[in-house]
């Protein structure tokens, strides 16, 4: 069965304290892995797409990497405005499978 698992469920960081979020997946025929940010009461906001193992993408303090079984979202020197839920999704067939997200809180 296709599955996407994110860890940890919640993460509290001090401002400036770097860390990584994990997304592991078991799907047949991966066509792409996506990272989104979701703020309370809003729809997800696209961050990155990764298509093949070894690929990396960066945007400001965020860096996403992909292996054959998992993806990491690295957050370098986070700021309070990075607080949000980070969702991972995989594209297989015509469908998107989302994980349950990691709720990140960055404390000033």
């Amino acid at each position, binding site marked *: 069965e296709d599955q996407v698992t994110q860890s940890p469920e919640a993460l509290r960081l001090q401002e400036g304290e770097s860390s990584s979020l994990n997304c592991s997946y078991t799907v047949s025929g991966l066509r792409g892995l*996506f990272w989104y940010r979701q703020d309370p009461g809003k*729809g997800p906001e696209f961050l990155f797409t990764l298509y093949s193992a070894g690929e990396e993408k960066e945007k400001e303090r965020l860096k996403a990497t992909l292996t054959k079984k998992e993806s990491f979202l690295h957050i370098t020197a986070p700021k309070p405005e990075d607080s949000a839920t980070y*969702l991972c999704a995989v594209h297989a067939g015509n469908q*998107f499978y*989302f994980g349950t997200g990691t709720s990140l809180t960055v404390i000033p």
Partner: protein
Amino acid sequence: GAGVSQSPRYKVAKRGQDVALRCDPISGHVSLFWYQQALGQGPEFLTYFQNEAQLDKSGLPSDRFFAERPEGSVSTLKIQRTQQEDSAVYLCASSLAWSGTETYNEQFFGPGTRLTVL
């Protein structure tokens, strides 16, 4: 505005009522997706359109759920005889297309409709 809009933003229905949720995608976007997001969970895929064609509806939880996009732009998700387990946020997303490069695959989400069934 240039983004995906959804209406209503909030809907309260009595159990057994029918509801219709509307999605206005970004103009020119070929692909449109509906998702259901329960509290504290990630979005779950419901259905996918390419223009007016519904290419995948395997995520619709029951035959009480029906989606349409008759002219390839605005889409409506209809839920008949609502049940309490239908309470969730319903998200709509659109993308330029659904193949090829990252630019085409990026999904833009609307703010969602929060449905509460009493």
